[in-house]
Each structure stands twice: as C-alpha cells, then as structure tokens.
C-alpha cells in the first residue's frame, strides 16, 4: 500500500502531515510506503529520517486543478498511489473536486463534501450552530456603514471584528472598531462580522466522522501553552463529555466524512463552551490521539478502503504533548535534487 500525504511543513505553524504519518507508522502491522507531496524544498518533513519513502513537489492549489491532476498522474505512474490524504485547508476544495478523476485512476481519498466544507464558512457556521443548539459567540453581519450603530446597542466591548474570509481584530471600543472595519472592508468586502469576545481558555477536539453520521473517535484536549502566534505548543487530553458530545452531534448532523478539529472557548464568565471554528481536517496535534488510545489517522485509512471500524469510546486522560524544536542536519544533495528535479 502506498499512501501519499501532504503538509510536511513541520514548522512553527505546522502542517498535520508528519503527525499523520507518525500515527500511521505507529500501527503494529503497517508495511506500506509513504509518499510525501510537498510544495517547497525546505519543508522540514523532507529531512526527517524514516518518515517518508519518497517526495514529490506538487503545484500550489492556486495554480489550477489541471496542473495538479497532471502532476498526480505522473507520480501515480511511478509510485502507484493507493490513497491521498491532503492535510491543508487550502488543498481541500481542489482534492474534493478531483475525487472522481482520482478514483478513476484507482486512488482513494476520504474527504468531506463541498457542502460540508461550506458549513464552516464564517457566516454559515453561526446559522448551523444556532439551528443545532450549539453555543457560538454572538455574531452579527455588518452590511453597510449604517449598520455600524447596531454594535453599541447589541454588544459589550471588547468585540472581535472579522473579515468574511480571513483576519480578525479585537476592538476595545467603538472608536477602535472603525479602522479595523475600514481595513477589512477594503480587503475582503462586505459583510464584516462583529463577534462577541469571549474571555476564557481554549479547548480542542480532534474527531473522525465515518461519512454516515457516525463518530469513529474523538479526543478532547486543553491547550497548556500557546505561542505568540496563537499556536498550541503543548496540550493535555481531558475528560469533558460536553465537548465529545458536541463533536458527535456535529458529525451526526453534517454526516461528516473525514477528520476534523473543533476549536472551543470556555467562557470564564458563564463556564460554557462556545464553538469558534470547525477545521475540516486532522490537526497538527493529531499524534496525541494514537498515544491516548485512538489512532484516528489509521482509522481514516481503513474507512477510506471501505473497511468497518469499531468506534473508539474511551481514551487515556492526562496524556501530554509538548512540541519541540530540533535541528535536522542534511547534506546539500537532497535539497539540490528536490529544488531542481522536484522529486527524491
């Protein structure tokens, strides 16, 4: 079996590729090959020993599907891929659209549908949660300058000012909202989202949906250490049924097919959990899951091959991950080959 994985950028803003591969290799009976699909000759995953068997540069998602398909066909001819696991947000739309073509080549995927991907849109998530009784921060869409007056009537400061696609700022007062509002408006256009700012601690859940509404597994974690970039650098598995129940509920309602990460904030004020975001893929901390007893990446592979997987029901509480920096030493030859030939 040859499994191709993307996202080997194990940097300080890590892609989930390496943890997914580590999880797969953790299985006792794993004898398959791993092909790394990379975008840059300096992705750290390339230089880790015993992780990946061969590497291929692939074109960026922004350069079009024909290019990507052509490159994958080339790689497939040489490597005979059985499964591709894309792990980066920006790749998902492309791979979802390529699914039929990949299937025709005999390459499997296990991905959410376009509809499922769209639920996570910043304006849609709010409606989805409200319809399903999941707490979300109070949220309004600003569609014109005139709507700005709603903010002071409906919110206490600080508030979060968000663009429809990306970027968010925290505004302490109405005066502070204006410059962010103008910046976001000129960059991403209307609507601008004004969101209640929830003070509290961050909690995350990694889960796997089987595509029929069933949850194959779910592990909850509290971030112990957050970098200045807002990335979790250490975390601990926790016992919190509310979070696991919400993961089950979301997977059931969306019939989610694939891995996902849920980001929650536990409000200091009310003690309740608020869903901030649904990330449509396994997170970079997914290696904590097999260590706590739920090998979700391995289960994802089984599901992709149409096998039945007995859902995990428990996991070990109190398992900790601590991320570390570790310098890998390599010879210029490997870098040169990948930079010029695009494969290794």
């Amino acid at each position, binding site marked *: 079996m040859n499994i191709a994985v993307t996202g080997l*950028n194990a*940097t300080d803003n890590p892609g989930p590729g390496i943890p997914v591969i580590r999880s797969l290799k953790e299985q006792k009976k794993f004898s398959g090959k791993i092909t790394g699909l990379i*975008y*840059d*000759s*300096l*992705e750290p995953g390339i230089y880790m020993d015993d992780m990946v068997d061969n590497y291929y*540069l692939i*074109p*960026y*998602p*922004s*350069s*079009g*599907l*024909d*290019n990507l398909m*052509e*490159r994958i066909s080339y790689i497939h001819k040489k490597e005979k891929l059985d499964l591709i696991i894309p792990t980066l947000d*920006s790749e998902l*739309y*492309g791979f979802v*659209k390529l699914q039929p073509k990949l299937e025709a080549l005999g390459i499997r995927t296990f991905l959410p549908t*376009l509809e499922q991907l769209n639920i996570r849109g910043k304006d849609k998530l709010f409606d989805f949660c409200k319809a399903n009784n999941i707490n979300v921060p109070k949220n309004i869409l600003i*569609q014109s300058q005139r709507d700005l007056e709603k903010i002071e009537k409906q919110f206490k400061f600080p508030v979060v000012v968000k663009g429809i696609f990306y970027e968010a700022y925290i505004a302490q007062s109405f005066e502070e909202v204006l410059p962010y509002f103008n910046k976001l408006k000129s960059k991403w*256009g*209307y*609507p601008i989202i004004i969101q209640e700012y929830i003070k509290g601690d961050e909690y995350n859940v990694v889960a796997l949906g089987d595509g029929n509404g069933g949850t194959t597994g779910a592990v909850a974690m509290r971030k112990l250490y957050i970098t200045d970039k807002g990335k979790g650098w250490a975390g601990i598995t926790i016992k919190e049924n509310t979070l696991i129940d919400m993961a089950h509920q979301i997977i059931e309602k969306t019939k989610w097919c694939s891995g996902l990460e849920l980001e929650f904030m536990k409000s200091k004020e009310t003690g309740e959990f608020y869903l901030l975001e649904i990330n449509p893929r396994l997170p970079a901390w997914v290696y904590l899951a097999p260590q706590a007893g739920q090998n979700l990446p391995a289960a994802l592979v089984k599901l992709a091959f149409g096998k039945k997987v007995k859902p995990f029901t428990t996991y070990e509480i109190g398992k900790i991950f601590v991320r570390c920096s570790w310098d890998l030493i390599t010879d210029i030859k490997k870098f040169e080959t990948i*930079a010029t030939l*695009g494969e290794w």
Partner: protein
Amino acid sequence: MTKKRYERPVISKHYSGLMNKYGGRQMTPPKTHLDGIAVKELTEKFGSPLFVMSEKQIRNNQQNANRIFKNRYPKVQFAWSYKTNYLDAVCSVFHQENSWAEVVSSFEYEKAKKLGVKGEHIIFNGPDKSSEALLHAIKDTAKIHIDHFDELYEIKKITETEKLKAKVAIRINMDVGVYPKWDRFGFNLENGEAWQAIQRIASNKNLQLIGLHSHIGTYMMSAEAYRLAAQKLSLLAKSIKTDLGIAIEYLDLGGGFASHNTLLGQYLPAEQIVPTFEQFADAIASGIFSASFKTEELPLLILETGRALVDDAGFLLSTVLANKRLADQRRAIIIDAGVNILFTSFWYKHKITPAQESGMHSEDVTLYGPLCMNIDCVRESIVLPPLNKGDRLVIEYVGAYDMTQWMQFIQMRPNVVMIMEDGTVELIRKSENLEYLLDREILPVKFKKSSKQSKTKH
C-alpha cells in the same frame, strides 16, 4: 547533430521561507492547438491579436446546461443573454440550440429580430426602453420585463393610445442573503413595492402579467441564494394566483452563474470553489418545488445564463512584442493584446498559457499590453516560462463580455474567428481599420485642405 531548443538564459534565487509562492515550478503544458487547429496557423492566417470562438464548446455548454436543468425540472427554457456576446455567429449557435433571446437595448432587440428570433421568444429587459422600442415590442408580442413604475405607466399609455395588449413580466429584487444586494433593478419584494406593481398590472385590462423575473447578482458563488430566490418567486406566483386569480406562466431566474474565471485577489482558482451547474440547477429546482405547485400548474423556468455558457468558448491569441526589465529588476513582457480588448482583466486572473513548448524553468513577470497608457496592464504578476519576442500566448475564458465591452482605443479591434464543428475556420468579425474609423467621422468643411493647398505645402 540536432541543436537544443533555445530559451532565454534565466536564473532565479531560492528564497527562504516556506510556501514561497514562486518557488514551485510551473507545470503547465503548452496550449499549441485549439479544437485541433494550430495556434500558429491561426495567427499567421488571421493576424495577432485574434479572438477565437469554439462552436463545439458553445454547443457542448448549452446542451449540457439543458440536460442538467431538464433532468431536474420538467419545463426549462434558456434565453441567450445578448450583452454577454452579441456577435451574430455566436448568437446563432445558441438559437440553433433552441435558446431564445434576452436583450437589454433596442439595437440588441433588432439584432435578434434580424437573426430570425420570433417576438414572443424575445425577453426585453433593462431600465432603458424607449417608447418606440416598447411599441415595437408590444406589437411583436415580445416578453417585456418591467423595471420601474415610469416604464409601467409608459406601457399603459401606449396600449391605451394604440389599442394594443402587452405581455409583461416584472423584475423583482429581494434579499437572498448575498452582497452586494442588487436593489437598483426592478421592484423590491420585501417593502411591498413589487406587490403594488403587480396589483396595478392586474387591474389594467390591456396588460397581461405572464411572468416574474429576478436576477440576484453577477458571478454568484453561492447556489443557495438561487434556492431562496426561486422559492420567493414561486411563493409570490402562488399568492398572485390565490389573491388575483392570475396564473403566472413563467419564472425567469436570470443569470449570474459564475464561470471558471478566477477573480483578482481570490487565492483558489474558480474551478475549485465555484458551484457546478448541477448545484445551481438543484437549488433552483428544489426552490420552485418547495412552493408545492400542482403539477399541471408548474411554471416554465427561464434562465438567462450568459457568462457560464460562453466564457470558456472564447480565446484570445496574443504575441510577445518585447521583453524588458523594470527598474527593480522585475521582468516585464509586452504583448499585443491590451486592456482595450481584454476589459475583463480588470477583475479576472485569466488563465494564460504559452502556445509553444518551453523548459522547466519559469519566472514571475508583469504582463503589459501594447497601449501607450499606464492602465494597460494585463496582469500584475504571473509565473510564465521565459518567452521570446514572437512567442504566442493563449488567454483563456474570454468568451463573455470581452467582445462586447471592448473598445477602439489606440489600437483597433482585431479579427474574430470561429472554429466550426467540422474543423474549418470562419472569420466572423473583420478587424477594424482606419477606413472603418473614419467612416463615422465628419470633418467640417472649413478644416478640409484642398488638394492644391496641401500640394503647395509640400
């Protein structure tokens, strides 16, 4: 010994930092042929720049759209949106594929008539319809879509004086959760204006209300918005039936489906995020079905899709005029197709592909058009293989709006050809020349130099 292919010598630095946008090599194969015809042959014969339309692609698109919609809804009629591309040859292909005509000006109306479209198969839209045009359309029993109250009263007046009956529909704007909200065309649903207009039409014996029309926006990325629009129009049609006893014959959901052109500032290519035709069709059909019409009372569904049916059937062939370096060492390439004929480059990142083989190397360049005018920038930044003077580029997805919004400015408009289904190539619009330009100009007599004077000056 056969010599190696020459390519301009190029060096590029590997910049540190992951996900470096220009680090990856371009892996696009060249586009040497269009529908089996060599690009080189086309430009040699018809000049460069050159617009090329593919008859096959237009037919494929229209047949596909018909099939997809008819699989989901029993009564469907497409009307070709003239403003998107009103070249006679292009319109004719659509009409052969059973599309009606959707026009927004009297010259488009006349064009459709000349192509043999029956009045009853012309949908007359838009805010500007002169009294003459309205009279003409009423006599032809064309479907007039009323945009505002002034127009409604104008039609009322004409039918009274001329003792005629008019078939009308009204354009309705509404909130379907998309931005910007298009409220400048038609009558608003939520504030009751639409209902007012409907009542006025219903109370006039000369006016027959036959349809409801909406057009929620352009380049729509959400199929859901169409579901909502279809549902709201359907519910309105049902209340018209219940309250006023008028059976609405058709619902016109307009156009606005996004094509596969990617907008500037949009990271992912359109093909990855734009809903498919199937999704638009599913949304519209289920929107109408949700109003639970009796089967025999289901209205005809009219669609005025333009862009999504013709964009990928148009290509612009262009030739490299020069290579240069800008002050900051960035590479710039000047091509012979400028923004005057590629208006859509102000909002699209067109797919631009070399028409000849190139090496593995690529560089980041700015593409300029040939106009001596600062605005003439076809693309700020694009990764292309090193190009030599005389090399050709194929600019894709230019079938919509470029051949109607183009202008004669510094350069004339070039030839347009159509590659026919049988592989022949027909010239469908001749390039303009000085004679064509001067034909419309009138030089007042006092400026005219007699041949004598000009001789003495020599």
